[in-house]
């Protein structure tokens, strides 16, 4: 579903990604780890179409993400630590607006469904600026899944969340990640990432340094691998 080949990205003369090869089949959840500046966000933004690559190729569902028209963006739901929603609209108005932009069929019913799913049905008429950080992040996830995308990209979705909100996010992600949806997420929380994903990747210095299925990794074991991979460079 996501195919990345020889991906290089440089900002001016500073290379951030130095030749990433990655293949994520449909239905797989991948957690991307790495220190700040490793290139995680840049990789996710390139896959989302928010940033141009310097060279290489990104295919989504077999289509070249850089060459394809706007219609390919329908494949993607994107959540970052920035919620990408409007503070001065209500939760319902935000979803109504983004639903119109994605031409989501049966929009009113879909909005009801998504608000239930993210636990905000009772606050649908409230303006977003009155929401807590956890509620805003849940609405951001609602916005990202409203058009039912086959690919979900999550860039540090747990940043700034307390334990309770993070637990709710985990439940939501497990639900969203089931079935054929492909999920690629970045997080600094190793245990949480291992728990959420089927596969773990460590990115450092713009390259993939480690790639394994999470079923083969214990939390403590992975922490040691992470320290060795990141610290040894």
């Amino acid at each position, binding site marked *: 579903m996501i195919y990345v080949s020889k991906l290089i990205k440089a900002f001016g003369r500073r290379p951030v990604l130095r030749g990433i090869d990655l293949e994520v089949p449909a239905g797989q959840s991948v957690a991307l780890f790495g220190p700040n500046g490793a290139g995680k966000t840049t990789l996710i933004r390139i896959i989302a179409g*928010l940033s141009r690559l310097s060279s290489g190729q990104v295919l989504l569902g077999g289509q070249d993400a850089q060459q394809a028209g706007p219609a390919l963006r329908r494949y993607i739901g*994107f959540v970052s630590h*920035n919620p990408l929603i*409007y503070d*001065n*609209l209500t939760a319902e108005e935000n979803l109504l607006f983004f639903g*119109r932009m994605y031409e989501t069929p049966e929009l009113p019913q879909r909005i009801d469904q998504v608000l239930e799913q993210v636990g905000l049905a009772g606050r649908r008429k409230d303006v977003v600026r009155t929401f807590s950080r956890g509620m805003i992040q849940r609405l951001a996830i609602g916005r990202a899944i409203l058009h039912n995308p086959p690919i979900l990209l999550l860039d540090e979705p747990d940043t700034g969340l307390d334990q309770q909100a993070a637990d709710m996010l985990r439940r939501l992600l497990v639900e969203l990640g089931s079935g054929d949806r492909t999920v690629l997420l970045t997080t600094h929380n190793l245990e949480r990432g291992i728990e959420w994903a089927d596969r773990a990747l460590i990115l450092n210095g713009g390259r993939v340094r480690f790639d394994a299925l999470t079923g083969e990794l214990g939390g403590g074991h992975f922490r040691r691998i992470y320290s060795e991979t990141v610290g040894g460079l």
Partner: protein
Amino acid sequence: MSYLRKVLAIVWKDVRAELRTKDILSSMLVFAGLSVLIFQFAFDLRADNVRLVLPGVLWIAITFAGVLGLNRSFILEQDRGSLEGLLLAPVDRSAIYFGKLIGNLLFIFIVELLLLPLMTVLFNVWLLSPALLLVVALGTVGYAAVGTLFAALSINTRAREVMLPILLFPVMVPVFVAGVQAVSRLLDGDSLADIVRWVQLLVAYDAIFLAAAMLLFDYVVEE
């Protein structure tokens, strides 16, 4: 149809948010009103000099108030990263430009609709003739077309609120010159037929910059 629906969705979103907060309109209206009053005191506008100075006062009030609105409209997009939310949508990015442009035009027109009667009363000069309204509308379209593009450009710069007027005003010189000249001639009693060259200049400016902005917007917002 799909393209138009998405443009209108963006306009709806901006109007809905503005109706709730009145952030943009209130600051533009207060600024425009205050600047007209300051000019009134500064130049001691009387019957013998008012027709000479009034066209400049009108365009300065529109321009400065407009900058506030243009800046605010993109700062609100930037606050929660919502501009990226728009860029992720499966829509040609020119639709985002036109949606933002129509919203900005709407807000500037509302300010003008209140500013022109206010100036008519304050200076005792009739500023609501159809010809004058046409000139103001044409100038505003050009101003908003370039302003919306440059507001999107300056939003990612460090001194974003200062950057917009620095970028925008030099490019706006043809609109100011044509606008001031046309209004001035209309106040002197000329008809629309007498100022057709200035009107043509405004129409040409609008067409060129609307087309250029539509083509350039994708590059301006892309990382």
